Each structure stands twice: as C-alpha cells, then as structure tokens.
C-alpha cells in the first residue's frame, strides 16, 4: 500500500515553512514594515526619476478606498467570489461523480 498523501504533506510543509520564515524575519529584521511591494516600487520610481512620490498624479482620475478597513472589505469580497466559484464547482463535480 502506497502513501497517498505526499502532496498534502508537502503543501503543509511549504505553508508552515513560509509562516516560520515570516515570524523569523518579522522578529529579527528591524525596520521591516511589510508594506506592499507596489509601494516600495513606487518609492524606487520616485528615487530614480528624482520626483517626489506625491507628485505622481493619476493619469485617469481614480476612486480610492477611504480607509484600510474598506480596502480589506473589498479584497475579502474578491476572495469570496473566488471561493464561491471553487467550492461551487468542486461540489458540482462531486455530485456528478456520485450520480454516475
């Protein structure tokens, strides 16, 4: 009898290792802000072009979420849509398989 769950084990190991690395960096690296790399990138653009970040104005006017709360709400909404799709389809497939 062969072991069936190699991939599951590997995935758990990868996720646990990822968390461990995060805990290690966040406790040892002083000054790590864990800002989005998008923003870090924008900072570098400002440095390379010699224009302060504030001077970059949207070319096309843009709505910005008024606070971090609202932003995380909308991100959660996006993930929820994906979750519904994935869960729904897997349920549908399991149902199909049972019927067949």
């Amino acid at each position, binding site marked *: 009898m062969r072991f069936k769950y190699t991939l599951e084990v590997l995935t758990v190991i*990868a996720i646990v290792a990822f968390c461990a690395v995060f805990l290690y960096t966040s406790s040892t690296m002083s000054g*790590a802000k864990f*800002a989005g790399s998008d923003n870090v990138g924008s900072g570098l653009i400002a440095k390379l072009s010699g224009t302060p970040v504030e001077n970059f104005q949207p070319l096309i006017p843009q709505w910005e979420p008024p606070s971090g709360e609202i932003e995380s709400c909308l991100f959660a909404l996006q993930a929820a849509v994906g979750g519904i799709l994935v869960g729904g389809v897997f349920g549908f497939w399991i149902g199909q398989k049972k019927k067949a």
Partner: protein
Amino acid sequence: MHIMEGFLPWQWCLVWWIVALPCLMLGTYQLKKVLAADREALPLLGVTGGFIFILSSLKLPSVTGSCSHPTGTGLSTISFGPWITAVVCAIVLLFQSLFLAHGGLSVLGANIVSMGIVGPLVGYMIYRLLRDTSVNIYITVFLVTALADMFTYVTTSLELALAYPAETGGFVSSFILFMGIFAVTQVPLAIVEGTVLALVFKYIVALKPDILIRLKIFSEVKINAARNEIS
C-alpha cells in the same frame, strides 16, 4: 506587481495597452470557441479562474520585509492557455483598479501584460515542453505555476526599468534594482503557490479526469498514471 496609477508615463501606458489588446481579443475569441465546443469546460474555467480571484487578493509577507501577492494563473494557463488566462486576469485587474486603487485604468495595459500575458506565456511554454515527457504532472503544475508567478514580477520590473532607466547604468542597473524589490520578494510566494496549486490539480484529477483528457490538457496515459499514484 501592480504598477500604480500615474507611475507610468503615458507613452508606456499606450505601448502596453497596444500589446495587451490583441491578446485579449484573441482570448475572448478562444473562450467563446472552447465554451461552445464543450459545456463541461465552464466549471473547469470556474475553478481555475476562481483561484486567480482568491490568490491575487492575498497579500503575503515575504523575506524582504515587504508584502506581495501570488497570481494564481498557473492552473488556468495549463487548462486554457495564456490568452484566455489574460481575459480572466483583465477582469480581476479591472476590479482592483476600479475599487481598490491597486493599479489603474491607464496602467491596466501594463499590468495585464505582466500578470495575464508574459507570466502565463512563460508557464505555457514550460507546460508544452513537459507535457509529452515522462515528468510527473504535479511537478509540471508546480513549475508552471511558480514560474508564471515569478515571470509576472520579472515583467513588472522590466516595464518599470524601461520607463525609468537609472542615470548611471541605465536600463540594466534599474532593472536589477526593481528585480530586487519585486522578484526577490516573490520567490517564497511562488514556491508556496506552486505546491498549493499542484495539490488542487490533484483533486481535479481525482474528480474530473475526463474533462482533462477531452480538452487534451494531458494525455490519457499520464492522467491514468497520476490517478494510480494518488489512489
């Protein structure tokens, strides 16, 4: 991986839009054709597209002390190819630029090129290279996903380096600087994303092997071999 609105000169916005649009048109055309040919393709599109929605909303911390998000494009690339994947990515990126101020309408073209086109295209080449070899399909899925993710960020670095060459060293030195921010942060994320999507693919193989064979995603022989491995 998003270039923020206003951070790309309009000339470059235009260039990337011109690159992105024909790919999106081709993708829409292919999508119609695939769905008309086989109704069972729709649920598969739902699952693979669903993971793009989920994974691209997760901003994860990384070793460089900043956060970044995976792209989730690997499964869709394997199942439907890069052009249809570009269409799904365009939907996600449009949502993010309209409601989350991640990216924006002028830079949408550039962001579609990195996440929806170049990343998946690299992944697709790996898939085509490995599909007919004896390489295990889960290793294939892992490599495709991880590399599609990595090359998305390499492309973002490239787009920014082209628009902002450094004063000394020009394009190359600013490419290295942007790679330091985007690509290095992405390495651990790409590895985790690859393993997770390989696991998801295992469940698709277990539940719905017939659709994978019918859409010629993998040969019957390889699918059966993979099924024997897991059950």
